[in-house]
């Protein structure tokens, strides 16, 4: 009798829980060790964007990129960051970075000097610990101009 009651109570609690979850997100935690490599004598705040490689659609109709998180660093170089990756919004992992040489907070505003940018596809994803290297060899380009290649 007690076992039957316990089973019935468990079933009731399960149904109640299932009937009260509104948003059910799944995040994959990744410890990222990165290196942002800029041309010599480059000084400035560095913006690093972490993107899904693909978001909506499949195959040839897949939409490239999808911003997950934007991180700031005081200068190019080593950067360690823990990313909570939403697994149900896309696939793959791409890192894009640029350096704000003139401190205006914008990439290559008209009339300002060119600012270095670059992109790397993180290899080995999914894994809980990954490393990547982004070389800022392009100037004044957004991530959509660099990916897909």
């Amino acid at each position: 009798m007690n076992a039957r009651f316990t089973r019935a109570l468990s079933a009731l609690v399960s149904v109640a829980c299932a009937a009260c979850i509104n948003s059910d997100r799944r995040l994959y935690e990744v410890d990222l060790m990165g290196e942002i490599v800029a041309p010599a004598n480059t000084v400035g705040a560095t913006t690093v964007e972490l993107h899904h490689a693909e978001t909506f659609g499949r195959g040839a109709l897949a939409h490239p990129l999808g911003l997950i998180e934007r991180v700031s660093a005081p200068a190019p170089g080593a950067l360690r960051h823990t990313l909570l990756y939403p697994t149900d919004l896309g696939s793959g992992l791409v890192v894009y970075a640029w350096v704000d040489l003139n401190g205006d907070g914008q990439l290559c505003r008209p009339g300002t000097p060119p600012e270095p940018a670059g992109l790397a596809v993180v290899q080995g994803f999914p894994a809980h610990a990954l490393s990547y290297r982004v070389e800022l060899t392009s100037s004044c380009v957004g991530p959509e101009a660099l990916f897909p290649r």
Partner: protein
Amino acid sequence: MRALTVTTALAAHLLPSFANAQSAEAPPSWTTTDAVGGAPSRGSWGVHAWGGWHSFGARGYGAITDRLAIAGGFESVLAIRWRPFVALNVRFVDTARFRLSGEPSFGWLLQRGEFTKLGPSAELRLRMALKFGRVVPFVTLATQLTTLADRTVIDSANGSRTEWSFRHELAFIGDLGLAIAITRAFGLEVGAGYPWYDAPNGVPLPRFFLGIHVGAAR
């Protein structure tokens, strides 16, 4: 000025009766009055169903004392948003001309579609009705609070962990209508309302409805 005069006259007519809330002069109740004003007398019961655009619902009640009734039913908006509930109906005022009752209820919000909302919901409803023989104008005011739970599962190198967060949805509902008792046990109503779900974010839409009351009033 005229509005003030009318208000004063109405207050003068009603207020003496408030002091004698259980007036022996109160006429026998009608199911229609019980359905829209609440506060049925002991032994009374009834079913109240209403529908129109954009919502519909049904409510059954039974009085266990002269001041307290239990009720249950559901409300739906466009058959997308459903709220089954159980309620207590408490008599505050019942005079020859006026009835006021309060109805705290507990329900469960089940909303499907583009914006899924699921969760426990509490509501406080005030029912007011004037009694002019068979004609019963009524006003209903309600406020509703629903708790919405979100679950996040994080897969890390050390295993999975689950985090819960909670949001709330607030709703305000106001209805105004006219009910007519055809017999003591049967009546009809017509009304309009202005429910504001998901306030202050959602857009309030007016609603219009017809209703029917069936039961036994003591």
